[in-house]
Protein backbone atom coordinates (compact mmCIF):
# COMPACT_ATOMS: atom_id res chain seq x y z
CA UNK A 1 0.00 0.00 0.00
CA UNK A 2 1.34 3.44 -0.83
CA UNK A 3 1.85 6.14 1.74
CA UNK A 4 -1.09 8.23 0.54
CA UNK A 5 -3.37 5.18 0.64
CA UNK A 6 -2.34 4.51 4.18
CA UNK A 7 -2.99 8.11 5.08
CA UNK A 8 -6.49 8.01 3.62
CA UNK A 9 -7.25 4.83 5.54
CA UNK A 10 -5.92 6.40 8.72
CA UNK A 11 -8.09 9.48 8.22
CA UNK A 12 -11.16 7.35 7.54
CA UNK A 13 -10.52 5.37 10.72
CA UNK A 14 -10.11 8.52 12.81
CA UNK A 15 -13.33 9.88 11.32
CA UNK A 16 -15.14 6.70 12.36
CA UNK A 17 -13.88 7.16 15.92
CA UNK A 18 -15.71 10.49 15.97
CA UNK A 19 -19.11 8.89 15.42
CA UNK A 20 -19.55 7.23 18.86
CA UNK A 21 -18.35 10.46 20.45
CA UNK A 22 -20.98 12.51 18.67
CA UNK A 23 -23.62 9.90 19.47
CA UNK A 24 -22.56 10.03 23.11
CA UNK A 25 -22.93 13.79 23.13
CA UNK A 26 -26.42 13.50 21.66
CA UNK A 27 -27.33 11.11 24.50
CA UNK A 28 -25.84 13.45 27.12
CA UNK A 29 -27.91 16.22 25.57
CA UNK A 30 -31.03 14.10 25.83
CA UNK A 31 -30.30 13.26 29.47
CA UNK A 32 -29.80 16.96 30.24
CA UNK A 33 -33.19 17.68 28.68
CA UNK A 34 -34.71 15.02 30.94
CA UNK A 35 -33.07 16.61 33.99
CA UNK A 36 -34.79 19.87 33.24
CA UNK A 37 -37.78 20.80 35.34
CA UNK A 38 -40.88 20.70 33.20
CA UNK A 39 -40.99 19.76 29.51
CA UNK A 40 -41.53 21.60 26.26
CA UNK A 41 -45.28 21.50 26.77
CA UNK A 42 -44.99 23.21 30.14
CA UNK A 43 -42.88 25.87 28.47
CA UNK A 44 -45.45 26.31 25.71
CA UNK A 45 -48.30 26.41 28.16
CA UNK A 46 -46.44 29.02 30.15
CA UNK A 47 -46.12 31.16 27.02
CA UNK A 48 -49.75 30.76 26.04
CA UNK A 49 -51.03 31.12 29.63
CA UNK A 50 -54.36 29.61 28.65
CA UNK A 51 -53.78 25.88 28.37
CA UNK A 52 -56.21 23.39 29.79
CA UNK A 53 -54.84 20.09 31.16
CA UNK A 54 -56.65 18.25 28.34
CA UNK A 55 -54.97 20.40 25.73
CA UNK A 56 -51.58 19.85 27.35
CA UNK A 57 -52.10 16.07 27.38
CA UNK A 58 -53.02 16.29 23.72
CA UNK A 59 -49.85 18.26 22.98
CA UNK A 60 -47.72 15.73 24.89
CA UNK A 61 -49.19 12.97 22.80
CA UNK A 62 -48.45 14.87 19.62
CA UNK A 63 -44.81 15.52 20.64
CA UNK A 64 -44.44 11.93 21.81
CA UNK A 65 -43.74 13.02 25.38
CA UNK A 66 -46.09 10.33 26.77
CA UNK A 67 -43.92 7.58 25.25
CA UNK A 68 -41.47 5.50 27.31
CA UNK A 69 -38.08 7.14 27.71
CA UNK A 70 -36.13 4.88 25.33
CA UNK A 71 -38.63 5.60 22.55
CA UNK A 72 -38.15 9.30 23.19
CA UNK A 73 -34.36 8.86 23.14
CA UNK A 74 -34.57 7.03 19.85
CA UNK A 75 -36.77 9.73 18.36
CA UNK A 76 -34.38 12.39 19.63
CA UNK A 77 -31.33 10.71 18.13
CA UNK A 78 -33.19 10.28 14.86
CA UNK A 79 -34.09 13.96 14.79
CA UNK A 80 -30.53 15.05 15.45
CA UNK A 81 -29.18 12.74 12.78
CA UNK A 82 -31.65 14.37 10.37
CA UNK A 83 -30.16 17.71 11.52
CA UNK A 84 -33.37 18.66 13.30
CA UNK A 85 -32.22 20.32 16.53
CA UNK A 86 -35.65 21.47 17.59
CA UNK A 87 -37.35 24.83 17.60
CA UNK A 88 -36.51 28.01 19.43
CA UNK A 89 -39.77 29.46 20.64
CA UNK A 90 -38.12 32.74 21.60
CA UNK A 91 -36.68 33.45 18.20
CA UNK A 92 -39.52 31.65 16.40
CA UNK A 93 -37.02 29.85 14.20
CA UNK A 94 -35.57 26.33 13.91
CA UNK A 95 -32.51 26.05 16.16
CA UNK A 96 -30.26 24.91 13.31
CA UNK A 97 -31.09 27.94 11.10
CA UNK A 98 -30.48 30.24 14.04
CA UNK A 99 -27.11 28.66 14.74
CA UNK A 100 -26.06 28.86 11.10
CA UNK A 101 -26.66 32.62 10.97
CA UNK A 102 -24.35 33.07 13.96
CA UNK A 103 -21.63 30.59 13.04
CA UNK A 104 -19.61 32.92 10.79
CA UNK A 105 -18.68 35.61 13.33
CA UNK A 106 -17.66 32.99 15.90
CA UNK A 107 -15.47 31.15 13.41
CA UNK A 108 -13.83 34.43 12.43
CA UNK A 109 -13.15 35.33 16.06
CA UNK A 110 -11.93 31.87 17.02
CA UNK A 111 -9.66 31.17 14.07
CA UNK A 112 -8.03 34.60 14.40
CA UNK A 113 -7.58 34.12 18.13
CA UNK A 114 -6.20 30.61 17.78
CA UNK A 115 -3.78 31.69 15.06
CA UNK A 116 -2.49 34.66 17.05
CA UNK A 117 -2.29 32.69 20.28
CA UNK A 118 -0.33 29.84 18.68
CA UNK A 119 2.06 32.08 16.75
CA UNK A 120 2.70 34.37 19.72
CA UNK A 121 2.99 31.39 22.04
CA UNK A 122 5.59 29.74 19.81
CA UNK A 123 7.58 32.96 19.45
CA UNK A 124 7.51 33.82 23.14
CA UNK A 125 8.25 30.24 24.19
CA UNK A 126 11.18 30.18 21.78
CA UNK A 127 12.50 33.51 23.09
CA UNK A 128 12.20 32.30 26.68
CA UNK A 129 13.85 28.94 26.04
CA UNK A 130 16.76 30.34 24.04
CA UNK A 131 17.49 32.90 26.74
CA UNK A 132 17.01 30.46 29.59
CA UNK A 133 17.28 32.10 33.03
CA UNK A 134 18.06 35.52 31.60
CA UNK A 135 15.87 38.60 32.09
CA UNK A 136 14.08 37.73 28.83
CA UNK A 137 13.03 34.34 30.14
CA UNK A 138 12.02 35.81 33.50
CA UNK A 139 9.83 38.54 32.01
CA UNK A 140 8.11 36.18 29.56
CA UNK A 141 7.53 33.57 32.25
CA UNK A 142 6.04 36.13 34.65
CA UNK A 143 3.78 37.51 31.91
CA UNK A 144 2.62 34.00 31.05
CA UNK A 145 1.97 33.19 34.70
CA UNK A 146 -0.10 36.35 35.22
CA UNK A 147 -2.07 35.94 31.97
CA UNK A 148 -2.77 32.36 32.94
CA UNK A 149 -4.42 33.53 36.16
CA UNK A 150 -6.50 36.40 34.75
CA UNK A 151 -10.20 35.87 34.13
CA UNK A 152 -11.05 36.48 30.44
CA UNK A 153 -14.07 38.65 31.12
CA UNK A 154 -12.13 40.93 33.42
CA UNK A 155 -9.40 41.45 30.81
CA UNK A 156 -12.18 42.32 28.37
CA UNK A 157 -13.69 44.90 30.71
CA UNK A 158 -10.31 46.42 31.52
CA UNK A 159 -9.53 46.76 27.80
CA UNK A 160 -12.86 48.51 27.28
CA UNK A 161 -12.08 50.79 30.21
CA UNK A 162 -8.69 51.71 28.78
CA UNK A 163 -9.15 51.80 25.01
CA UNK A 164 -12.79 52.83 24.71
CA UNK A 165 -13.75 54.76 27.82
CA UNK A 166 -10.44 56.55 28.56
CA UNK A 167 -8.71 56.79 25.19
CA UNK A 168 -11.69 56.47 22.86
CA UNK A 169 -9.63 54.54 20.28
CA UNK A 170 -11.73 51.44 19.76
CA UNK A 171 -15.47 50.66 19.58
CA UNK A 172 -16.85 48.89 22.66
CA UNK A 173 -19.12 46.37 21.04
CA UNK A 174 -20.54 44.75 17.95
CA UNK A 175 -18.81 43.46 14.85
CA UNK A 176 -19.13 46.49 12.58
CA UNK A 177 -20.43 50.03 12.63
CA UNK A 178 -24.14 49.70 12.04
CA UNK A 179 -25.55 51.98 9.35
CA UNK A 180 -22.15 53.14 8.15
CA UNK A 181 -22.65 51.33 4.86
CA UNK A 182 -19.00 50.42 4.39
CA UNK A 183 -18.07 48.06 1.59
CA UNK A 184 -14.97 46.16 0.53
CA UNK A 185 -11.72 47.11 2.18
CA UNK A 186 -13.35 49.79 4.31
CA UNK A 187 -15.70 47.22 5.78
CA UNK A 188 -12.87 44.76 6.44
CA UNK A 189 -10.94 47.47 8.30
CA UNK A 190 -14.04 48.39 10.30
CA UNK A 191 -14.52 44.75 11.33
CA UNK A 192 -10.82 44.48 12.18
CA UNK A 193 -11.11 47.50 14.48
CA UNK A 194 -14.05 45.85 16.26
CA UNK A 195 -12.07 42.63 16.56
CA UNK A 196 -8.96 43.99 18.25
CA UNK A 197 -10.19 43.86 21.84
CA UNK A 198 -12.15 40.58 21.73
CA UNK A 199 -9.17 38.85 20.12
CA UNK A 200 -6.68 40.21 22.65
CA UNK A 201 -8.93 39.29 25.58
CA UNK A 202 -9.64 35.79 24.31
CA UNK A 203 -6.10 35.01 23.16
CA UNK A 204 -4.25 36.12 26.30
CA UNK A 205 -4.99 32.98 28.33
CA UNK A 206 -4.24 30.59 25.46
CA UNK A 207 -1.12 32.49 24.50
CA UNK A 208 0.11 32.00 28.05
CA UNK A 209 -0.66 28.28 27.88
CA UNK A 210 1.13 27.88 24.52
CA UNK A 211 4.11 29.92 25.68
CA UNK A 212 4.63 27.72 28.72
CA UNK A 213 4.19 24.57 26.69
CA UNK A 214 6.56 25.76 23.95
CA UNK A 215 9.23 26.70 26.49
CA UNK A 216 9.00 23.32 28.24
CA UNK A 217 8.95 21.51 24.91
CA UNK A 218 12.08 23.35 23.68
CA UNK A 219 13.93 22.50 26.88
CA UNK A 220 12.92 18.86 26.59
CA UNK A 221 14.13 18.66 22.98
CA UNK A 222 17.42 20.33 23.90
CA UNK A 223 18.47 17.19 25.79
CA UNK A 224 17.83 14.83 22.88
CA UNK A 225 20.58 12.84 21.21
CA UNK A 226 20.07 14.46 17.82
CA UNK A 227 20.95 17.84 19.35
CA UNK A 228 24.21 16.41 20.68
CA UNK A 229 24.91 14.98 17.23
CA UNK A 230 24.19 18.31 15.58
CA UNK A 231 26.45 20.09 18.02
CA UNK A 232 29.17 17.47 17.51
CA UNK A 233 29.18 17.97 13.78
CA UNK A 234 29.83 21.64 14.41
CA UNK A 235 26.49 23.33 13.72
CA UNK A 236 26.01 26.75 15.28
CA UNK A 237 23.46 27.03 18.09
CA UNK A 238 21.32 29.14 15.79
CA UNK A 239 21.23 26.42 13.14
CA UNK A 240 20.46 23.79 15.78
CA UNK A 241 17.51 25.75 17.13
CA UNK A 242 16.05 26.81 13.80
CA UNK A 243 16.86 23.74 11.76
CA UNK A 244 16.29 20.95 14.25
CA UNK A 245 14.83 21.75 17.65
CA UNK A 246 12.08 24.13 16.58
CA UNK A 247 10.18 21.81 14.28
CA UNK A 248 10.14 19.05 16.88
CA UNK A 249 9.23 21.37 19.72
CA UNK A 250 6.23 22.72 17.82
CA UNK A 251 4.44 19.34 17.73
CA UNK A 252 2.98 19.39 21.27
CA UNK A 253 1.85 22.99 20.71
CA UNK A 254 -0.14 21.91 17.65
CA UNK A 255 -1.78 19.10 19.62
CA UNK A 256 -2.60 21.51 22.42
CA UNK A 257 -4.06 23.90 19.86
CA UNK A 258 -6.60 21.26 18.91
CA UNK A 259 -7.45 20.50 22.51
CA UNK A 260 -7.90 24.15 23.34
CA UNK A 261 -10.51 24.72 20.62
CA UNK A 262 -12.97 23.01 22.95
CA UNK A 263 -12.18 25.41 25.75
CA UNK A 264 -12.11 28.42 23.49
CA UNK A 265 -15.76 27.88 22.59
CA UNK A 266 -16.60 28.30 26.27
CA UNK A 267 -14.40 31.37 26.44
CA UNK A 268 -16.17 32.83 23.44
CA UNK A 269 -19.49 32.78 25.34
CA UNK A 270 -17.91 35.12 27.86
CA UNK A 271 -15.98 37.29 25.40
CA UNK A 272 -18.86 37.60 22.95
CA UNK A 273 -21.21 38.63 25.71
CA UNK A 274 -18.71 41.22 26.97
CA UNK A 275 -18.16 42.72 23.52
CA UNK A 276 -21.58 42.10 21.98
CA UNK A 277 -19.92 40.05 19.23
CA UNK A 278 -22.86 38.59 17.26
CA UNK A 279 -21.74 34.94 17.24
CA UNK A 280 -22.69 31.62 18.81
CA UNK A 281 -21.37 32.65 22.22
CA UNK A 282 -23.64 35.67 22.40
CA UNK A 283 -26.51 33.50 21.15
CA UNK A 284 -25.80 31.04 23.98
CA UNK A 285 -25.72 33.91 26.46
CA UNK A 286 -29.09 35.20 25.19
CA UNK A 287 -30.52 31.67 25.30
CA UNK A 288 -29.37 31.43 28.92
CA UNK A 289 -31.23 34.57 29.86
CA UNK A 290 -34.38 33.67 27.95
CA UNK A 291 -34.29 30.11 29.42
CA UNK A 292 -34.35 28.91 25.81
CA UNK A 293 -32.77 25.55 26.65
CA UNK A 294 -33.51 23.94 23.29
CA UNK A 295 -31.30 26.54 21.70
CA UNK A 296 -28.62 26.28 24.39
CA UNK A 297 -28.41 22.50 23.95
CA UNK A 298 -28.32 22.89 20.17
CA UNK A 299 -25.31 25.20 20.47
CA UNK A 300 -23.70 22.80 22.93
CA UNK A 301 -24.16 19.90 20.53
CA UNK A 302 -22.76 21.82 17.60
CA UNK A 303 -19.79 22.98 19.67
CA UNK A 304 -19.01 19.39 20.64
CA UNK A 305 -19.20 18.32 16.99
CA UNK A 306 -16.84 21.13 16.05
CA UNK A 307 -14.34 19.80 18.57
CA UNK A 308 -14.53 16.30 17.09
CA UNK A 309 -13.91 17.75 13.62
CA UNK A 310 -11.07 19.94 14.91
CA UNK A 311 -9.39 16.93 16.51
CA UNK A 312 -9.66 15.08 13.22
CA UNK A 313 -8.04 17.99 11.39
CA UNK A 314 -5.22 18.06 13.96
CA UNK A 315 -4.67 14.32 13.46
CA UNK A 316 -4.38 14.88 9.73
CA UNK A 317 -1.97 17.82 10.12
CA UNK A 318 0.06 15.66 12.44
CA UNK A 319 0.56 12.93 9.86
CA UNK A 320 2.26 15.55 7.67
CA UNK A 321 4.29 17.15 10.46
CA UNK A 322 5.63 14.03 12.07
CA UNK A 323 6.63 11.24 9.68
CA UNK A 324 7.31 8.93 12.63
CA UNK A 325 3.61 8.60 13.33
CA UNK A 326 2.42 5.16 12.33
CA UNK A 327 -0.59 5.32 10.13
CA UNK A 328 -2.53 2.45 11.62
Amino acid sequence: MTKSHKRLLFIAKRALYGIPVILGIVIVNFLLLQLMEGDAVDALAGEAASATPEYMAQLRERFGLDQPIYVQLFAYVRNVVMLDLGYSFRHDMPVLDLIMTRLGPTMLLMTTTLFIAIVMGIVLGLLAATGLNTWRDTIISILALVSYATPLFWVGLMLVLLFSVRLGWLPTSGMETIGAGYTGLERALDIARHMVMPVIALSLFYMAAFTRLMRASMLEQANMDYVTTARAKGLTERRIVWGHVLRNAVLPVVTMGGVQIANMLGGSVIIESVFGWPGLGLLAFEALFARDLNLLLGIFLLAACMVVVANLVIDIIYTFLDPRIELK
Partner: protein
Amino acid sequence: MTPSASTGFWRRYSRNRSAMLGLVILLSALVMAASAPLIFPGSPFALAGQPRTPPGPEFMLGTDTLGRDVLAGIFHGARTSLMIGVLATLVSLSIGIVVGGVAGYYGGNIDNLLMRLTEFFQTIPNFLFAIVIVAIMTPSIQSIIIAIAIVTWPAVARLVRGEFMALRNREFVQACVVVGMSDLRILAFHILPNCIAPITVIGSLMVATAILVESGLAFLGLGDPNVMSWGYLIGAGRTVLRTAWWVATFPGIAILLTVLAINLVGEGLNDALNPRLRDR
Protein backbone atom coordinates in the same frame (compact mmCIF):
# COMPACT_ATOMS: atom_id res chain seq x y z
CA MET B 1 5.43 11.24 56.16
CA THR B 2 8.20 10.93 58.71
CA PRO B 3 9.29 14.12 60.55
CA SER B 4 12.58 14.29 58.68
CA ALA B 5 10.84 13.91 55.32
CA SER B 6 8.42 16.70 56.16
CA THR B 7 11.16 19.09 57.29
CA GLY B 8 13.03 18.26 54.08
CA PHE B 9 9.88 19.10 52.17
CA TRP B 10 9.45 22.40 53.99
CA ARG B 11 13.11 23.29 53.47
CA ARG B 12 12.81 22.69 49.75
CA TYR B 13 9.49 24.54 49.54
CA SER B 14 10.64 27.59 51.51
CA ARG B 15 13.74 28.01 49.37
CA ASN B 16 11.47 28.70 46.42
CA ARG B 17 10.76 32.44 46.54
CA SER B 18 7.78 32.53 44.15
CA ALA B 19 6.16 29.60 45.96
CA MET B 20 6.54 31.48 49.27
CA LEU B 21 5.02 34.61 47.71
CA GLY B 22 2.10 32.48 46.53
CA LEU B 23 1.67 31.02 49.99
CA VAL B 24 1.61 34.48 51.61
CA ILE B 25 -1.05 35.76 49.16
CA LEU B 26 -3.10 32.60 49.55
CA LEU B 27 -2.95 32.86 53.35
CA SER B 28 -4.15 36.47 53.16
CA ALA B 29 -7.09 35.35 51.02
CA LEU B 30 -7.87 32.70 53.64
CA VAL B 31 -7.68 35.30 56.41
CA MET B 32 -10.04 37.54 54.42
CA ALA B 33 -12.47 34.67 53.99
CA ALA B 34 -12.31 33.74 57.68
CA SER B 35 -12.64 37.30 58.99
CA ALA B 36 -15.38 38.46 56.59
CA PRO B 37 -18.28 38.01 59.07
CA LEU B 38 -16.25 39.75 61.83
CA ILE B 39 -15.03 42.77 59.87
CA PHE B 40 -18.16 43.14 57.74
CA PRO B 41 -21.00 41.70 59.83
CA GLY B 42 -24.34 41.47 58.13
CA SER B 43 -25.18 40.68 54.54
CA PRO B 44 -22.78 41.86 51.83
CA PHE B 45 -25.92 42.51 49.77
CA ALA B 46 -27.08 45.14 52.29
CA LEU B 47 -26.94 48.80 51.33
CA ALA B 48 -24.05 50.54 53.03
CA GLY B 49 -23.98 54.07 51.65
CA GLN B 50 -24.57 56.34 48.67
CA PRO B 51 -24.60 54.47 45.33
CA ARG B 52 -21.45 54.76 43.25
CA THR B 53 -19.29 56.38 45.91
CA PRO B 54 -15.73 56.42 44.55
CA PRO B 55 -12.95 54.78 46.57
CA GLY B 56 -12.12 57.06 49.51
CA PRO B 57 -11.97 57.36 53.28
CA GLU B 58 -15.50 56.10 53.86
CA PHE B 59 -15.41 53.11 51.53
CA MET B 60 -11.90 52.05 50.68
CA LEU B 61 -12.90 50.47 47.36
CA GLY B 62 -16.10 52.48 46.79
CA THR B 63 -19.71 51.29 46.49
CA ASP B 64 -21.63 49.78 43.59
CA THR B 65 -24.78 50.94 41.77
CA LEU B 66 -27.01 50.07 44.72
CA GLY B 67 -24.67 51.47 47.38
CA ARG B 68 -23.18 48.16 48.52
CA ASP B 69 -19.65 48.21 49.87
CA VAL B 70 -17.27 46.70 47.30
CA LEU B 71 -14.65 45.81 49.91
CA ALA B 72 -17.24 43.90 51.96
CA GLY B 73 -18.26 42.09 48.77
CA ILE B 74 -14.65 41.11 48.12
CA PHE B 75 -14.22 39.77 51.68
CA HIS B 76 -17.42 37.74 51.52
CA GLY B 77 -16.66 36.72 47.93
CA ALA B 78 -13.38 35.20 49.12
CA ARG B 79 -15.41 32.74 51.21
CA THR B 80 -17.49 31.68 48.21
CA SER B 81 -14.58 31.40 45.79
CA LEU B 82 -12.33 29.42 48.10
CA MET B 83 -15.13 27.19 49.34
CA ILE B 84 -16.35 26.33 45.85
CA GLY B 85 -12.77 25.92 44.64
CA VAL B 86 -11.89 23.45 47.39
CA LEU B 87 -15.16 21.49 47.43
CA ALA B 88 -15.34 21.16 43.64
CA THR B 89 -11.74 19.95 43.62
CA LEU B 90 -12.46 17.36 46.31
CA VAL B 91 -15.46 16.00 44.39
CA SER B 92 -13.48 15.98 41.16
CA LEU B 93 -10.51 14.24 42.81
CA SER B 94 -12.80 11.56 44.24
CA ILE B 95 -14.32 10.78 40.85
CA GLY B 96 -10.94 10.91 39.13
CA ILE B 97 -9.23 8.70 41.72
CA VAL B 98 -11.94 6.03 41.57
CA VAL B 99 -12.12 5.95 37.76
CA GLY B 100 -8.37 6.26 37.21
CA GLY B 101 -7.50 3.85 40.01
CA VAL B 102 -9.82 1.11 38.82
CA ALA B 103 -8.72 1.57 35.19
CA GLY B 104 -5.03 1.56 36.05
CA TYR B 105 -5.13 -1.35 38.50
CA TYR B 106 -7.33 -3.76 36.56
CA GLY B 107 -6.28 -2.81 33.03
CA GLY B 108 -7.76 -4.75 30.10
CA ASN B 109 -11.35 -4.15 29.07
CA ILE B 110 -12.29 -2.17 32.16
CA ASP B 111 -9.39 0.17 31.47
CA ASN B 112 -10.41 0.47 27.84
CA LEU B 113 -13.98 1.29 28.70
CA LEU B 114 -13.16 3.78 31.43
CA MET B 115 -10.54 5.54 29.32
CA ARG B 116 -12.96 5.89 26.42
CA LEU B 117 -15.38 7.48 28.87
CA THR B 118 -12.66 9.80 30.13
CA GLU B 119 -11.67 10.83 26.62
CA PHE B 120 -15.31 11.40 25.83
CA PHE B 121 -15.68 13.81 28.74
CA GLN B 122 -12.49 15.55 27.69
CA THR B 123 -13.84 16.13 24.20
CA ILE B 124 -16.91 17.99 25.43
CA PRO B 125 -16.20 21.74 25.52
CA ASN B 126 -15.85 22.04 29.27
CA PHE B 127 -16.88 25.57 30.13
CA LEU B 128 -19.89 25.32 27.82
CA PHE B 129 -20.78 22.00 29.47
CA ALA B 130 -20.57 23.63 32.89
CA ILE B 131 -22.85 26.44 31.71
CA VAL B 132 -25.41 23.96 30.39
CA ILE B 133 -25.36 21.86 33.58
CA VAL B 134 -25.79 24.84 35.89
CA ALA B 135 -28.49 26.38 33.68
CA ILE B 136 -30.50 23.17 33.67
CA MET B 137 -30.07 22.34 37.35
CA THR B 138 -30.73 26.00 38.29
CA PRO B 139 -27.83 27.94 39.83
CA SER B 140 -26.84 27.04 43.38
CA ILE B 141 -23.63 26.23 45.22
CA GLN B 142 -24.33 22.51 44.78
CA SER B 143 -25.01 22.68 41.05
CA ILE B 144 -21.90 24.82 40.49
CA ILE B 145 -19.75 22.34 42.41
CA ILE B 146 -21.23 19.40 40.50
CA ALA B 147 -20.71 21.15 37.17
CA ILE B 148 -17.07 22.01 37.89
CA ALA B 149 -16.38 18.47 39.13
CA ILE B 150 -17.98 16.91 36.04
CA VAL B 151 -15.83 18.95 33.67
CA THR B 152 -12.53 18.60 35.54
CA TRP B 153 -12.29 14.96 36.70
CA PRO B 154 -10.89 13.46 33.44
CA ALA B 155 -7.46 15.05 33.98
CA VAL B 156 -7.27 13.46 37.43
CA ALA B 157 -8.40 10.09 36.12
CA ARG B 158 -5.65 10.04 33.50
CA LEU B 159 -2.98 11.01 36.00
CA VAL B 160 -4.10 8.47 38.62
CA ARG B 161 -4.40 5.73 36.00
CA GLY B 162 -0.80 6.27 34.95
CA GLU B 163 0.43 6.15 38.55
CA PHE B 164 -1.59 3.04 39.40
CA MET B 165 -0.41 1.25 36.28
CA ALA B 166 3.19 1.96 37.19
CA LEU B 167 2.71 0.73 40.75
CA ARG B 168 0.51 -2.33 40.30
CA ASN B 169 3.37 -4.66 39.36
CA ARG B 170 5.72 -3.52 42.10
CA GLU B 171 6.76 -6.06 44.70
CA PHE B 172 4.89 -4.50 47.62
CA VAL B 173 1.63 -4.78 45.70
CA GLN B 174 2.34 -8.39 44.75
CA ALA B 175 3.09 -9.07 48.40
CA CYS B 176 -0.32 -7.66 49.33
CA VAL B 177 -1.99 -9.91 46.75
CA VAL B 178 -0.14 -12.97 48.04
CA VAL B 179 -1.18 -12.21 51.62
CA GLY B 180 -4.76 -12.27 50.34
CA MET B 181 -5.72 -8.67 50.86
CA SER B 182 -8.91 -7.46 49.21
CA ASP B 183 -8.54 -5.32 46.09
CA LEU B 184 -10.19 -2.38 47.79
CA ARG B 185 -7.69 -2.52 50.64
CA ILE B 186 -4.72 -2.72 48.27
CA LEU B 187 -6.01 0.16 46.15
CA ALA B 188 -6.95 2.45 49.00
CA PHE B 189 -4.28 1.76 51.62
CA HIS B 190 -1.25 0.61 49.68
CA ILE B 191 -1.22 2.08 46.18
CA LEU B 192 -3.06 5.36 46.74
CA PRO B 193 -0.74 6.64 49.50
CA ASN B 194 2.13 6.26 47.06
CA CYS B 195 0.58 8.69 44.59
CA ILE B 196 -0.36 11.39 47.05
CA ALA B 197 2.36 13.73 45.75
CA PRO B 198 1.15 14.07 42.14
CA ILE B 199 -2.48 14.12 43.30
CA THR B 200 -1.70 16.97 45.69
CA VAL B 201 -0.09 18.96 42.91
CA ILE B 202 -2.89 18.46 40.38
CA GLY B 203 -5.45 19.12 43.13
CA SER B 204 -3.90 22.44 44.06
CA LEU B 205 -3.81 23.57 40.43
CA MET B 206 -7.44 22.47 40.04
CA VAL B 207 -8.55 24.75 42.86
CA ALA B 208 -7.27 27.64 40.75
CA THR B 209 -9.16 26.43 37.67
CA ALA B 210 -12.31 25.91 39.72
CA ILE B 211 -12.16 29.48 41.03
CA LEU B 212 -11.79 30.81 37.48
CA VAL B 213 -14.72 28.70 36.25
CA GLU B 214 -16.90 29.75 39.18
CA SER B 215 -16.16 33.42 38.58
CA GLY B 216 -16.98 33.01 34.88
CA LEU B 217 -20.30 31.34 35.70
CA ALA B 218 -21.19 34.01 38.25
CA PHE B 219 -20.24 36.74 35.76
CA LEU B 220 -22.71 35.25 33.26
CA GLY B 221 -25.41 35.34 35.94
CA LEU B 222 -25.12 31.66 36.84
CA GLY B 223 -23.85 32.17 40.38
CA ASP B 224 -25.75 31.15 43.48
CA PRO B 225 -28.05 34.14 44.01
CA ASN B 226 -27.79 33.80 47.80
CA VAL B 227 -24.04 34.19 48.17
CA MET B 228 -21.71 37.04 47.27
CA SER B 229 -19.10 36.15 44.69
CA TRP B 230 -16.30 37.95 42.84
CA GLY B 231 -17.67 37.06 39.42
CA TYR B 232 -21.09 38.43 40.40
CA LEU B 233 -19.51 41.72 41.52
CA ILE B 234 -17.71 42.11 38.21
CA GLY B 235 -20.91 41.32 36.33
CA ALA B 236 -22.71 43.98 38.36
CA GLY B 237 -19.93 46.48 37.69
CA ARG B 238 -19.96 45.85 33.98
CA THR B 239 -22.98 48.06 33.30
CA VAL B 240 -21.44 51.02 35.11
CA LEU B 241 -17.93 50.71 33.70
CA ARG B 242 -18.05 54.29 32.42
CA THR B 243 -19.21 55.92 35.61
CA ALA B 244 -17.91 53.60 38.35
CA TRP B 245 -14.81 51.75 37.14
CA TRP B 246 -13.94 50.52 40.63
CA VAL B 247 -16.88 48.11 40.94
CA ALA B 248 -15.57 45.77 38.23
CA THR B 249 -11.86 46.44 38.68
CA PHE B 250 -11.11 45.44 42.28
CA PRO B 251 -12.88 42.04 42.41
CA GLY B 252 -10.97 41.11 39.24
CA ILE B 253 -7.69 41.89 40.97
CA ALA B 254 -8.81 39.68 43.85
CA ILE B 255 -9.45 36.77 41.45
CA LEU B 256 -6.17 37.36 39.63
CA LEU B 257 -4.09 37.41 42.81
CA THR B 258 -5.80 34.38 44.35
CA VAL B 259 -5.54 32.24 41.23
CA LEU B 260 -1.94 33.33 40.66
CA ALA B 261 -1.09 32.51 44.28
CA ILE B 262 -2.63 29.04 44.04
CA ASN B 263 -0.75 28.33 40.81
CA LEU B 264 2.51 29.41 42.44
CA VAL B 265 1.83 27.23 45.46
CA GLY B 266 0.98 24.31 43.15
CA GLU B 267 4.23 24.69 41.25
CA GLY B 268 6.13 25.06 44.50
CA LEU B 269 4.56 21.83 45.78
CA ASN B 270 5.47 20.12 42.54
CA ASP B 271 9.11 21.16 42.84
CA ALA B 272 9.33 20.32 46.54
CA LEU B 273 7.61 16.94 46.17
CA ASN B 274 9.66 15.89 43.14
CA PRO B 275 13.18 16.99 44.05
CA ARG B 276 14.61 15.23 41.01
CA LEU B 277 12.74 17.52 38.63
CA ARG B 278 13.81 20.68 40.36
CA ASP B 279 16.76 21.59 38.16
CA ARG B 280 14.71 21.54 34.97
